[in-house]
Every structure is written in C-alpha cells, then in structure tokens.
C-alpha cells in the first residue's frame, strides 16, 4: 500500500484562489502565521477553522452550558486514529478531507457518487446545540453546524423498500493509523431505522463552534443523533446505503451483548460492565443523572412505542 509522505501543504496550494477558499489546512496555517507574526488572534477566526455561514436555531439549543472547545476537540473517540482519547487530535491532522465524495446507493432512486460540495450545496446550514452522551458515561454539550439528514434523504428519493440507512466511515489506513490494527472490523459502519433517520433532530454535521469540523471530530461530514449513545454518530462518512434489512453495525458486531443496534440513551439499561444511571459532563466534577433518550424523550420516545427497550437496547 502506498504511504503518502507528501505534506498537506505545498506552495502550489497557496496560488489558486479557488483552492484557497476550500483548504482549511491552509487557512489554519494562515491563522497560525498571523498568530505568530501579529502576536494576536485575528478577531474573525475564532478557533482557527474556516467560518461557516449558518442560521442559529435557538429552538433546538439545549440550555446547558457549552463544553469547552478545547475539550470537544481533544477528547475524542475516533478509533481510526487510535483508541486513546488524545490520539485523534494528535493524528487526524494529516487526513485529506478535500477532495471528498459520498456514495449513495442501495434502495434509492438517485444513487451515485456525489462530490461533497454538490451534496451540501442545496442545504442551508443551521446551528443546533445538542447534548452528546457517550456510552462510556461522559457527556458534552456541542454547538453543531449542519442540516437535517431528512433533507438529504428526501433529495435522493429512497424506494419503498428502504427500511434502514447505513453509513460507512472512510477506510484509509495510510492516513488513519488506527486502522492498521484490527481493533474493530474496519470500515466503521453505523445505521438507523428509516424513521430515526428522517427524524428532524437527526443531523448531518459539517461544523462545530461556527467553523468547519476539525478532522478529529469527523470531518468533513458526520452524523449527530443526540438521543443515542455517541458511537451511533458516525464520523467522516463516505457512503450512505439504503436497505430493506437492518445493517450490521460495527460495535454491535464487536460485542453484541454490550452494544445494540438502537443504542438509545437509557439510564435503566446497564451496559453489562457499568451502570448507565449517571454521567460526568466534561468540565464538571459531580456526576449528573442520565436522562432517558438523553433528555430528548419528548421528541423521540414515540418512535419506540410498544418496543421492549431492554431487549432492543
């Protein structure tokens, strides 16, 4: 396999203005240059990523205090870059996120491989502040920038046979060192039932804190399903597949009795090795009570009416 040694940044990248606008690596480099040269952070640049245009959605913002940007971007479960939480922030920098394309296939009227720009173009971006609850008993509050997955699904017109959507993460071991060991069955796959995917809370995110997603947070395109454990919110998506059958998902395959397909946040159903009753909000000392469906029960509980949530955990 070819190991790319070419640096992300070359002089050639600087010259073309069209590339200039798209290369967040270059923009980050510029910001760093300004920081060192000018001795202060440019007011507009925020945290160093490319700013996005978006509409705030205060109606979809939880009132909780936001988790620090530094914590959101340095404490990550992204096993493609290693199983240590600090590894993604250290190693994801070299991931090439441009060009990027997403394959849409399966039970769908308009299948195809779409360039990311074309996929995103019709969708106005909005900011939503969601809770994120990891299955490991920690949680964050993150201002995501994205658009409803439902809007994209409607666009590609799934057939009547489409009952589930499966997502696949990029497999590129030369840039994702964690994939060189068989910790999980790569590539990472996650999935949703169609009604879950169409739910207005389900978000395809391209940014956080007003800027393009840092690589370690799943750039350039990731899922955010706020009422499910974090591992459902798959990162760096390259494929969206519609199917009649429930897809086999990565964590479920790794440990079927520990990680179910649904993975709804549920304080009443323990992980076999730990209780899910409480969680530590990152930045806080005392633990909080975990809420059913991560506090989104009012919006999503009806999706599971009549289901035994202990069996379908």
């Amino acid at each position, binding site marked *: 396999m070819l190991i790319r040694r070419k640096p992300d940044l070359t002089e050639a990248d600087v010259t073309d203005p069209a590339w200039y606008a798209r290369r967040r690596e270059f923009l980050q480099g510029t910001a760093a240059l300004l920081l060192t040269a000018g001795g202060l952070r440019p007011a507009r640049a925020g945290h160093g990523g490319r700013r996005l245009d978006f509409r705030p959605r205060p109606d979809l913002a939880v009132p909780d205090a936001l988790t*620090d940007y*530094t*914590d959101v971007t*340095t*404490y990550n479960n992204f*096993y493609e870059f290693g*199983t240590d*939480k*600090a590894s993604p922030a250290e190693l994801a920098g070299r991931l090439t996120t441009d060009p990027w394309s997403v394959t849409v296939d399966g039970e769908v009227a308009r299948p195809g491989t779409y360039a990311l720009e074309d996929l995103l173009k019709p969708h106005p971006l909005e900011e939503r502040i969601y809770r994120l609850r990891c299955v*490991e008993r*920690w949680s964050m509050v993150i201002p995501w920038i994205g658009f409803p997955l439902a809007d994209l699904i409607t666009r590609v017109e799934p057939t009547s046979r489409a009952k589930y959507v499966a997502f696949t993460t990029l497999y590129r071991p030369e840039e994702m060192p964690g994939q060189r*060991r068989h*910790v*999980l069955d790569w590539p990472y796959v996650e999935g949703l039932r169609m009604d879950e995917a169409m739910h207005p809370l389900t978000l395809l995110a391209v940014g956080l804190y007003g800027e393009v997603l840092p690589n370690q947070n799943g750039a350039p395109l990731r899922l955010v399903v706020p009422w499910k454990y974090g591992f459902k919110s798959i990162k760096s998506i390259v494929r969206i597949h519609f199917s009649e059958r429930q897809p086999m998902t990565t964590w479920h395959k*790794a*440990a079927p009795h520990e990680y179910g397909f649904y993975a709804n946040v549920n304080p009443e159903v323990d992980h076999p*090795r*730990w*209780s899910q009753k409480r969680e*530590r909000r*990152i*930045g806080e*000392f*005392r*633990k909080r009570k975990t809420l059913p469906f991560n506090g989104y029960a009012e919006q999503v509980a009806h999706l599971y009416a009549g289901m035994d949530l202990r069996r379908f955990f």
Partner: protein
Amino acid sequence: MDAERMARLRLLVFVAALAPALWLAWALFADRLGANPFEALTRRSGEWTLRFLLLTLLMTPLRDWTGWRWPVRLRRMLGLYAFFYGTLHLFTWLWFDQFFDWPAIVEEIVKRPFITAGMGALLILLALAATSTRGMMRRLGRRWKPLHRMVYVAVLLAVLHHFWLVKADLLWPTIYAVIAGALLGHRLWRRVRRPGRLPAATALSRS
C-alpha cells in the same frame, strides 16, 4: 553490594517509585490530565498498580538470571508501592466515580466481574502489606511464605481486571498478561527443574 550502597539504591528506588504519584498530583492541579481528569486519575493509578506488581515479581527472576542479591532486597518496597498505587486507584474510584454511594459500590463489586477481580486483588495486597513487617514475618513463621505467594493470585486478578474492562483494544492488557505469564512461568520452570520439591518430583517421575 555493601550496606551504604544498598541504602543509597533503596533511597533512589523509593523516590523513583513515588515520582508517578507526584506527577499525577501535579498534573491534576496543572490541568494536564485532559478533558476528564478524574477518570484519567483512576486509569493511571490502576496502570501503575499493575506495573509495580509486575516489577515486584521481576525481582526474583532477576536474581536468578544475574546472581545479584540486591533485586530481592528491593522486593518488599516495590510490593508496598503496588499496594500504595492500588489504594490510590481504589480511592479515586470510590470518590470520583461512585461519590461514596455505598449501596451502589457494593452492587458494582458484586455485579461487575472486572470490579470483583480488582477488589480481590486489592484485598490480597492489603493482607500482604499488613504482614510485610519483620515482626509479622516472625510471628507467622512458616506460614508467611505460602501467604505471600498469594501475590501470584493478585497479579492474575489484576491482569484479568484490566482485560475485562477495556472496550475493544486488547493490546495493552495482552502485553501485561504476557509479562505476567513470563514472570510466573519462570517460577514454575524453576520448580520443575529443581529436584526435591513436589512439582519437580512429579515432573521427573513422568519423564
């Protein structure tokens, strides 16, 4: 090694073994433990417990391989450090993870095999630490040695505890297990090879 050099070596090892604890305390206050510092404290103190257990178990083979006497004379201190880090580990879990919610703690110990194993290892270490003085050695006489062989059970439980708690990545639990296996294996091998003892006798009669 003369008494003076041995004393200096002891002091050196004492300080070096304390260093991880001092670093953890500093890192906690300097905000160097990441986004989830209290969880990191539990994890790291647990790792140091296992490392000191393995270091303790390394001393006897080291003597056998090199003929040096000093490793065995450091064994008790290293074992006590394993107990020290284990106590720290337990305490951070009781406080920062469970907030001294005793009914919940008892439930966790009973319900989660990896916690049961870890607690078992710590109870053994407690018994060994309590009987580690010269006075206790004298008082226990011939029973002291079999009691302190329980450290083999403790290390096995600690390795198991580590294996059972990880989510998917078995690399480090495997590394620790292989080291523990080698150190325990050395003892078995030594017994088999040396005639006059029970396991050796059976091994010889079979061959």
